[in-house]
């Protein structure tokens, strides 16, 4: 998991792509935070993470997370495009397509200033 994610961050460092974590290591406590920092350093985790336990209800609760890790793939408009792709190659392919779309949208001529947000799923 983490080595692959590290490679994605490196590979797409100049692209409109980020990994955002929601970390459930108890980082709302000093002890949890200390352990988290040691491990993050050791494993080269450079991306930003929300503290899962730092919100009420927990972020993972709102997102109905049943098991860890759980992945959501969000496009440049914040729309969920995939859930729980696990295979490294499939993940990369899906993300690549989303990045292409994000770049295209950024370059699109005379795009309306504020596109209407897409309605929640039907």
């Amino acid at each position, binding site marked *: 998991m983490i080595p692959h994610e590290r490679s994605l961050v490196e590979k797409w460092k100049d*692209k*409109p792509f980020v990994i955002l974590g929601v970390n459930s290591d108890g980082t709302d406590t000093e002890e949890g935070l200390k352990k*988290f920092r040691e491990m993050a350093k050791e494993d080269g985790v450079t991306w930003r993470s929300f503290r899962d336990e730092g919100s009420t209800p927990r972020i993972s609760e709102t997102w109905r997370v049943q098991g860890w890790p759980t992945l959501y*793939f969000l496009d440049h408009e914040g*729309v*969920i495009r995939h*859930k729980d792709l696990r295979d490294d190659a499939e993940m990369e392919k899906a993300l690549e397509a989303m990045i292409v779309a994000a770049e295209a949208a950024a370059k699109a001529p005379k795009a309306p200033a504020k596109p209407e947000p897409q309605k929640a799923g039907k």
Partner: protein
Amino acid sequence: MSRTVLAALLLLTLPHAALAQGETPPSAPAQQDPAAAYDELVKAFNKAVSDWQTAAQAAVEKAQAEGGRMPAIAMQPPTKEFIGRAQELAAEHAGKDAAVPFLGFILKYASNERAAVKKAISTLAADHAASKAIGDVLPFAGNAMRFGAREQVAALLDAVADGHPDADTKAQGLIARGGMRLQTARTDEQRKAAEADLRAVATTTKNEEILAQAKDALFEIENLQVGCKSPEIEGVDTDGVPFKLSDYRGKVVLLDFWGFW
């Protein structure tokens, strides 16, 4: 934190187990009032789980303090004796409403008593689907799925959701069936069937508590499916800096719920 410790700690937070007090023998005399017998059973079970948790926690702490290996503690609560007792009591009241809570107890608390769970869910479907007591045990019907009783669960939930004479109980049946359908859905059609159940609750009951449950279950369907605009996250990062998911609009985001443990 190692996975073993985490698993142990998760079990330490089992519901209803922390507040048990007092000594009560697990067996009670026959012909007791069924409600009192049920209370006694639950109380004795909670006490046993609480004792088991205390012992498990002490063993984990000792191992951590000594830096040794994790002890081979029992990773499942002491359920067998109590499931057996619940079966006896259900049999004693067979065919009557009074049996329902005991069958529900089996669904709720069984850890690996596969045969007992299958029998309990079958009995509920065959004898009690129209009982006014069935609503309280519906939330635990889904537990029987992991004991290979999928058909029996479906039979019970169909009977209640489609045919229970009481509107509130019928609505509870719809929630239970919608939840189960959503959990097992692999196709859009199945997801739609789950959604239809949960939406039907609003036209079935006016009970606010039940309506709120249905709304909560619909949140997942309305906000967390592929194609949905993702819910906003406003939180704090591991350096204590507040930020929002929407700060990253314009970028593709791989949102990863994770931990080192």
